[in-house]
């Protein structure tokens, strides 16, 4: 199996495409940073005992006034920017992976059932999907925050999932409807296969490729969405790290000339999204001609 993967066309195409490799590299660096944050960050910026207000608003180390271990400077609370970015990425990835997993699975399942059984189920779920899709995620986030005073990361995930599942449902529904028409699905019915078997053995494996592309693109969108919500104050709570919130808190210092509070988190954010989008583009290209060849 591994050998088959190593020799596969896909790997070849991947290695030859500079944007795909660049994208994954960017993504990997930030992902590794995020995962290993507790060990590699010079400081845990959310442990109040470590912070010293004396060290607040220091510039990056290569500028005058900057000093170790604050490589990229500090914020107004004395938190090391680099560390906060690493922990912030952690949140971004956590939220994005969770949303994609939950919304992706639930949405795809709903779309599959709607396509397979059609009729009332299809009509109802699609109308529901249209309704949910037209809600702004920000609004839902605010609503949830109002109801559950504590806030927290699970709430952010929930808020995004509630509007995000629709794109998976729609994509899977279209894909599954197309696959349903293929003769091999009719053949499985003629053989007497159960609905379950037909859905999971025949339809899903062949309907998945578009979902993968949607998920890849969606990843970047969810990262941005979480950052936006946190920036507006309706996302991650204040005592938890978030790139969006860093930018929000740091923006008032721009006019005082302390640009690093915004530029570095912003760059991290852009890098994640850029990396994912480059990969997603490559993935979309890769999936298409292969479908045609088969």
């Amino acid at each position, binding site marked *: 199996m591994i050998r088959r993967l190593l020799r596969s066309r896909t790997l070849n195409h991947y290695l030859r495409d500079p944007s795909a490799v660049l994208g994954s590299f960017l993504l990997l660096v930030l992902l590794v940073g995020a995962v290993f944050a507790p060990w590699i960050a010079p400081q845990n910026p959310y442990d109040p005992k470590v912070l010293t207000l004396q060290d607040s608003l220091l510039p990056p180390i290569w500028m005058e006034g900057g000093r170790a271990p604050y490589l990229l400077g500090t914020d107004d609370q004395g938190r090391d920017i680099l560390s906060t970015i690493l922990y912030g990425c952690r949140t971004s990835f956590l939220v994005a992976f969770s949303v994609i997993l939950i919304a992706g699975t639930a949405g795809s399942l709903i779309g599959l059932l709607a396509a397979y059984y059609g009729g009332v189920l299809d009509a109802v779920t699609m109308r529901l999907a249209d309704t949910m899709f037209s809600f702004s995620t920000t609004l839902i986030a605010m609503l949830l925050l109002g109801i559950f005073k504590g806030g927290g990361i699970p709430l952010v995930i929930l808020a995004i999932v509630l509007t995000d599942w629709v794109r998976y449902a729609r994509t899977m529904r279209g894909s599954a409807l197309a696959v349903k028409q293929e003769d091999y699905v*009719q053949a*499985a019915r*003629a053989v*007497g*296969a159960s609905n379950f078997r037909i859905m999971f053995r025949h339809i899903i494996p062949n309907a998945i490729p578009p979902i993968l592309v949607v998920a890849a693109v969606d990843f970047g969108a969810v990262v941005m969405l979480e950052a936006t919500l946190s920036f507006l104050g309706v996302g991650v709570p204040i005592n938890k790290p978030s790139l969006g919130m860093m930018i929000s808190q740091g923006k008032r210092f721009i006019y005082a000339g302390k640009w690093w509070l915004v530029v570095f988190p912003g760059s991290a954010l852009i890098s994640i999204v850029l990396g994912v989008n480059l990969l997603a583009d490559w993935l979309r290209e890769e999936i298409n001609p292969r479908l045609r060849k*088969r």
Partner: protein
Amino acid sequence: MATEITLETDTLLRVTGLKKYFPVRRGVFRRVVGWVKAVDDVDMFIPEGETLGLVGESGCGKTTTGRTILRLLEPTAGEVLFRSKRLGRVVDVAKIGKKELKLLRREMQIIFQDPYSSLNPRMTVGDIVGEPLIVHRMAKGKEKEEKVKELLQAVGLKPEHMRRYPHEFSGGQRQRIGIARALALNPQLIVCDEPVSALDVSIQAQVLNLLEDLQEQFHLTYLFIAHDLSVVKHISDRVAVMYLGKIVELAETEELFTHPLHPYTEALLSAVPVPDPDYEAERIILQGDVPSPVNPPSGCYFHPRCPYAQSICSEQPPEFRDFGGAHFAACHRAGELSLRGVKMQ
């Protein structure tokens, strides 16, 4: 509950009054505004071990007929009587329940026209051919592997092909895989839905010969759907001709080809190429197009294009009756016209 259904001895399948209408919906509320009469009152029967050819132009309803008989589509009306070995009695396929239908699936199978869409591209050949065995819990693991190898060899493929994927095979080979899959459950009836239409002519001959050999070997009964008359001539014992959802003629192959009774049949036959350089073809080219099945013509559906039509043809639909020797036709003028057939070699 119901009285016992009976079928003549030696008859495996008898279809009576089969209809399949598709609704045409319009508007926001998807109201039904019309019906596509894909299969419109079809009668036929097939004796055990025989092949009934079903021919007609594209869109005449032959594929829909085949699928409705197998109940892959729900019939709108009609009766499909089948002598089931597994259930030990004659059943109406159109009306039996889900549990019985699943048991019945082992006795009726289908081979599809398109070798490229009839095999799941994500499954190995072994999985594809073995799936029926798994669904009906007939074999697992080693035993299944053995059976699959047997089936592949029966259709002329090698056992090691089991591990390969459909895209690694040619069209003709894929059709063989489809045939192997249809045979896996040891069915009595196989609906062959244009199995060679998508293949090159030389491969067509190979696959047709295979089908004939298998028929003899496994005592199969075929409903052979096709639009190519020369193919049908070769493999069928009897032939039915379809037009716009109705069967217009049904007779033994040689009889149909040499003494057709229906003008549509005559026109179809005139287009069959004859391998004789001295033969001067007089092709009958029909005027007009095939009418839409949503809005068929009055009386006899064929009358607008029929060279022999008379006033009665547009007023009354013709009766499908026996003109002697089990040669059926639906035409008001069938007895009086002397239509041209082809020479049989």
